[in-house]
């Protein structure tokens, strides 16, 4: 998080005072000139360290080389050969901890790594007609993919290109999973997701919406109908702190809050039927990307004071630095080293305040981060009208009731091989958050890629 000189080509952004009044995208992308200028900063080093930081193994130096020459179509072809969804990963990948982290320029004084994510996004957004992707000869094998999120879309796209007959079962009415119900439009516009989904559809993948496998359709029913199954249902249940008063009114999980707005249009109530509360003092618990998203949505809904409350300090915050910066610019307040102890409701059970305690940092814990410890006697009260808990997700209990026979690990996630996605049931593969717990979009895409390869090897036997 060093604040020294940044020699990277800046990306234009909407002015903070304007953007808190709309849901349009904050970052505006590179122009062709800007992209070329940024690409020319690349040394085209022999080490190609950036590639080792990419979960889907994109030929990043090759892509940058073509951009620097203005050969955008060639660059896009290199990108798309490894990544079906570049406009998405270019926006939401934590590049600073992946490809950009391993860029050699990090070691050069006065230099910052190449803005690989911005270049990827630039290519993903180009309206270039690529030659139809080569689809191999149709194979007489059917694959069901459960969940149309990042893992499922990747697996389906890759298998369809290999000639398999792929059907995706999606619980919601739209494809994209967390990309549509979770990440707000100002960070990932919904038409970008739609375009990438259309691309997967153009490869011949069929989508069946509003089907919750394990509930509306039994898992065994799919097992009989398909030669292989991929489960990419995400970590589909919210975690709550579970402190006293958790069931007070106006306490939301981030999933509920974001789904109401992103998927169901609650920000346009009453034109849209789904309501959302717009209250003055909003506390968001947790400091990950989902917390930043929730806080910034609350701000856009008109909340006057939005606070992020986090039990650790700024240095341990899991959110991307860029999202944190955006949140600060938009006037979000931060309460570091603060742990809620209990919620207090009024006579109607509407939350009115939150009792908190100040924390200090102790020795590192299992995550390697310094463990937060309560400071005795430091309790205080924070007045709030609404709380959004954004402290992560866990596996949906439907997994236990609806997917009988599937081996789960002790976090109740699916146990699957990390190189192939293979589960304990023959022909059944899994990947993404339902295996790893809450992780990133690109890691889910990486798991999808590996599973597609493994499913192909299995079916091609």
């Amino acid at each position: 998080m060093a604040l020294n000189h940044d020699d990277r080509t800046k990306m234009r952004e909407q002015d903070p005072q304007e953007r808190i009044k709309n849901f349009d995208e904050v970052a505006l992308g590179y122009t062709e000139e800007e992209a070329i200028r940024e690409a020319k900063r690349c040394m085209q080093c022999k080490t190609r360290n950036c590639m080792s930081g990419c979960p889907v193994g994109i030929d990043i130096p090759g892509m940058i080389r073509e951009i620097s020459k203005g050969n955008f179509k060639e660059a896009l072809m290199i990108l798309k050969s490894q990544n079906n969804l570049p406009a998405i990963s270019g926006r939401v990948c934590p590049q600073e901890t992946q490809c950009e982290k391993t860029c050699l320029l990090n070691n050069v004084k006065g230099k910052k790594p190449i803005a690989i994510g911005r270049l990827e996004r630039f290519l993903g957004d180009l309206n270039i007609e690529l030659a139809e992707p080569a689809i191999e000869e149709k194979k007489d094998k059917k694959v069901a993919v459960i969940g149309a999120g990042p893992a499922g879309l990747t697996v389906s796209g890759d298998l369809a290109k290999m000639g398999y007959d792929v059907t995706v079962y999606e619980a919601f009415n739209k494809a994209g999973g967390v990309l549509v119900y979770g990440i707000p439009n100002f960070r990932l516009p919904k038409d970008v997701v739609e375009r990438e989904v259309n691309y997967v559809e153009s490869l011949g993948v069929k989508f069946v919406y509003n089907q919750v496998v394990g509930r509306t359709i039994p898992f065994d029913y799919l097992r009989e109908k398909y030669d292989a199954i991929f489960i990419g249902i995400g970590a589909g249940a919210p975690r709550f702190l579970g402190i006293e008063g958790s069931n007070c009114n106006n306490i939301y999980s981030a999933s509920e809050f974001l789904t109401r707005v992103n998927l169901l249009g609650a920000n346009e109530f009453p034109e849209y039927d789904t309501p959302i509360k717009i209250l003055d003092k909003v506390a968001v618990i947790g400091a990950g990307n989902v917390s930043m998203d929730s806080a910034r949505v609350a701000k856009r809904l008109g909340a006057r004071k939005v606070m992020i409350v986090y039990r650790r300090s700024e240095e341990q915050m899991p959110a991307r630095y860029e999202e944190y910066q955006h949140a600060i610019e938009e006037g979000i307040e931060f309460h570091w080293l603060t742990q809620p102890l209990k919620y207090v409701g009024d006579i109607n059970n509407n939350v009115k305040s939150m009792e908190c305690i100040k924390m200090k940092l102790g020795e590192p814990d299992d995550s390697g981060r310094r463990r937060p410890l309560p400071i005795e006697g430091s309790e205080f009260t924070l007045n709030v009208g609404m709380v959004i808990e954004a402290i992560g997700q866990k596996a949906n209990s439907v997994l236990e009731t609806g997917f009988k026979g599937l081996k789960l690990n002790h976090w109740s996630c699916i146990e699957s091989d990390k190189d192939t996605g293979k589960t304990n049931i023959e022909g059944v593969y899994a990947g993404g958050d339902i295996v790893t717990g809450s992780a990133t979009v690109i890691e889910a895409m990486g798991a999808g890629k590996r599973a597609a390869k493994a499913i192909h090897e299995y079916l091609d036997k």
Partner: protein
Amino acid sequence: MNNKIISKNKLASKIYEFHIEHDTIPKFYQAGQFAIIRISENGERIPLTIVDAKIDYSRFIVKCIGKTTYKLAMMKEGAELLEVVGPLGNPAEVDNFGNVVVIGGGIGIAPILPIARALKDKGNSLTVIIGAVTSEQIILKDELRKTADNLIITTDDGTTGEKGLVTERLEELITNNEKIDRIWAVGPTVMMKFVSAIAKREVIPCMVSLNSIMVDGTGMCGACRVEVNGEMKFTCVDGPEFDGRFVNWDELIKRQHQYTEEEEKALEHFKKEVGDLSWL
């Protein structure tokens, strides 16, 4: 699957019965389960209990309460709902218990029909108590009469059956030393609360089907969370049935009123658009 309304019948003032074409509900439905419906692109997702399902349709009975249910009631035969997701939730835990009392209040009479039938199929001896404000609002009495060994009807105004509340009839059965092995109750939350209180006093298991506010209905958001036996449960995936003796009713009632203001606003907005709705 096109979610087409095959037929629509008015059962009472503001209460409509729908038969809706569906793929998965008829195949996999069991008594006690529900569906999440959304009528149109800007619509909300609401849970509706599935009353019955045969070959290629599912049956719903809906009371006009908020904008979505009014809008649904105005839809015509042949029209299509945008989304019908189901069956969702756990099936009713039906078994041969012996003597079972099934209680339905108001629109809650509809969801008890499939449960009563399933209990009868298991060989239980069945007393069904149904109640409503007035005789016109007593629905499904012929079907329930065929299913129940004993059907008791109550109305608040005494226009049909006995004047009074369903809980009074339950107390009467207890006073008469009727053997009751299990109770089922579906209806207004306050009714379920009082039936559960009686069940708790008499130490009789009492299954209730909760009508918490839901968003996705698949366990993803936690909007429908409810405290049961001191633990946080999600109505959509852990329920919708729980033993009412252990439900934190007062909290649930307050949670159900979270959006009263918004619901009224939406309905007002809708009335401005479509005009008078009293004819429904």
